[in-house]
């Protein structure tokens, strides 16, 4: 098992180099220059521009800038935002809990609905339930996030008035930022109704963000389950005379979960990138909204640093998925 983890870890290094190189180059390929964006319509004189460039190190050749950037990253320094002058890491850490909270709730929504739906669809294949699950999940998968978000917002927030339109909590509450997670902080604050307000604000964004992963999980579970149900060992299990639910939950699901776990892991990337759109539509103060705004401001260090951290998270999650995969599937654990 140790060797298995070590082997996976060694693959992380080239990925890491690739990410820094890509974000560094790509953000510089976008037309526009951070100093001019900062100055806005007022414009900036040529001398002042040169002075600021030298100050921020933009006058040096690109490979030198990259070298400085990477040495900084290796020492844990992601640089400061060009706009706020705050360290990128501390900005990230302030905003990240909001995104985690949203992504976590979306993932819970996706798994709680997607797994059982896919499972039941497989067991009851060919029935109306099966067809509905497959149709809904295909629809959900094909729906553009921003459109789906606006649609739900129009129906449930504007017309029915069941859920709030945007934000994390009603403005009447003042919640101290203890953990950064609104659900926890609202309980800690002791204010009446704060928690239910926080939950109400989470519902629509979670559904919107969780829809694509839910569709993917449902379809994957169904096809994986269908394959497993026709295996010989399922027949053996039934020949033992054990109850049908036990055959499905214990014998079939465990095997069917192996590919599904991989897919759930891959969805973390989708959740974080989907969060960019969802957060923008719902004015959710997380890293998605932060990154979008930084790109608009050509805030190079924030974009580079933010993407690097997000990419690292995705890598780590995939590593954890690989390990979980080894736990569920003994054939992987034992292979050299």
């Amino acid at each position: 098992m140790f060797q298995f983890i070590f082997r996976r870890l060694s693959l992380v290094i080239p990925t890491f180099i690739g990410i820094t190189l890509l974000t560094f180059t790509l953000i510089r390929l976008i037309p526009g220059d951070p100093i001019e964006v900062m100055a806005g319509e007022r414009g900036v004189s040529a001398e002042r521009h040169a002075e600021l460039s030298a100050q921020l190190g933009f006058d040096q050749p690109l490979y030198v800038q990259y070298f400085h950037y990477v040495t900084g990253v290796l020492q844990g320094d992601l640089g400061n935002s060009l706009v706020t002058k705050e360290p990128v890491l501390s900005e990230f850490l302030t905003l990240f809990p909001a995104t985690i909270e949203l992504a976590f709730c979306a993932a819970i929504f996706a798994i709680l609905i997607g797994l059982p739906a896919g499972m039941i669809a497989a067991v009851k294949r060919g029935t109306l339930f099966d067809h509905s699950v497959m149709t809904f999940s295909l629809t959900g998968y094909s729906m553009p996030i921003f459109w789906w978000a606006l649609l739900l917002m129009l129906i449930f927030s504007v017309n029915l008035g069941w859920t709030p339109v945007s934000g994390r909590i009603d403005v009447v509450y003042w919640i101290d930022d203890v953990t950064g997670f609104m659900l926890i902080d609202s309980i800690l604050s002791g204010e009446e109704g704060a928690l239910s307000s926080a939950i109400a604000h989470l519902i629509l964004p979670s559904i919107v963000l969780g829809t694509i992963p839910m569709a993917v999980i449902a379809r994957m579970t169904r096809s994986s389950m269908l394959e497993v149900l026709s295996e010989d060992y399922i027949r053996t299990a039934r020949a033992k005379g054990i109850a049908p639910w036990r055959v499905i939950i214990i014998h079939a699901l465990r095997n069917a979960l192996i590919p599904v776990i991989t897919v759930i892991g891959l969805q973390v990337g989708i959740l974080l990138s989907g969060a960019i759109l969802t957060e923008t539509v719902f004015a959710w103060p997380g890293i998605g909204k932060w990154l979008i705004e930084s790109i608009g401001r050509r805030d190079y260090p924030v974009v580079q640093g933010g993407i690097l951290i997000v990419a690292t998270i995705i890598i780590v999650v995939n590593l954890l998925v690989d390990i979980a995969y080894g736990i569920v599937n003994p054939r992987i654990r034992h292979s050299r």
Partner: protein
Amino acid sequence: MSLLKLENLSVTFGNFRAVDQISYSVNEGEVLGIVGESGSGKSVSSLSLMGLIDYPGKVSADELTFMDQDLLSMPEAQRRKITGSDIAMIFQDPMTSLNPCFTVGYQIIEALKTHQGGTKKELKKRAIELLTLVGIPAPETRLSAYPHQLSGGMSQRVMIAIAIACNPKLLIADEPTTALDVTIQAQIIDLLIDLQEQKQMGLVLITHDLALVAEVAHRVIVMYAGQIVESGPASEVFSAPQHPYTQALLASLPESAAGKARLEALPGVVPGQYDRPKGCLLSPRCPYATDHCRNVEPASQGPLERQVKCHTPLNAQGRPAA
């Protein structure tokens, strides 16, 4: 006393009759061989005994009783109490018949727990006994092995251990040695017969291997296209086959072709859903078929213990009687 009795059992998938009105019985302590080529309904009929035929398959019978209990009319849950404990089954491919995600011990103990129960310690002790009984060395350590760590022969021994865990009165072995190599085949069969004699189980042995059936079975049933074409004591059926199909099966054994340039073969294949002939199902392939055979389906004839489904059963010289 007969353990299992079936009367006109059919298994249909839509319009297709995979098993067509077969009747037989198995007595306590008896080894019944079922032979026939692929597609003759051997496996499907035995799966129907276990209640393992899924939709769209339909099982019907005038009688299907196990120890005088009607298996078809009893509720599912009650039937599951019999399945896996009083009637157990082992399958063709041991390598895929064990769940890859669970240890050998878990899979044996699960069978014990479902039907007998007991403390964790007792169950473990019983599982070790079972593994010893089926001839697995170092059973204590094997309990925590996963199926992929076992060879085919070992896997089949584990399957047998699971099947005999609850002391079944009837064991169905569906081609238990087909996927194994020859030396292991003999060991597995020896083990099965040993256990059968020790525990006085009824054993239904489904196989392609005619020599094996001739050696170990008390009675034999020959199936063709979902029907029983001939049945009787193993020695009689093989020494003096009365049905042309049984004769052809025996003639196709490599041993019968000693000294000849080519092996004997029965041309053609078992009829499927869309090419079922009108009269006798064997008539297109039968060397003795007459127009009568091609138009009228024969009924089973002869005494109950020696039946043949043919218009013109073969005589002792291997020629049609009429």
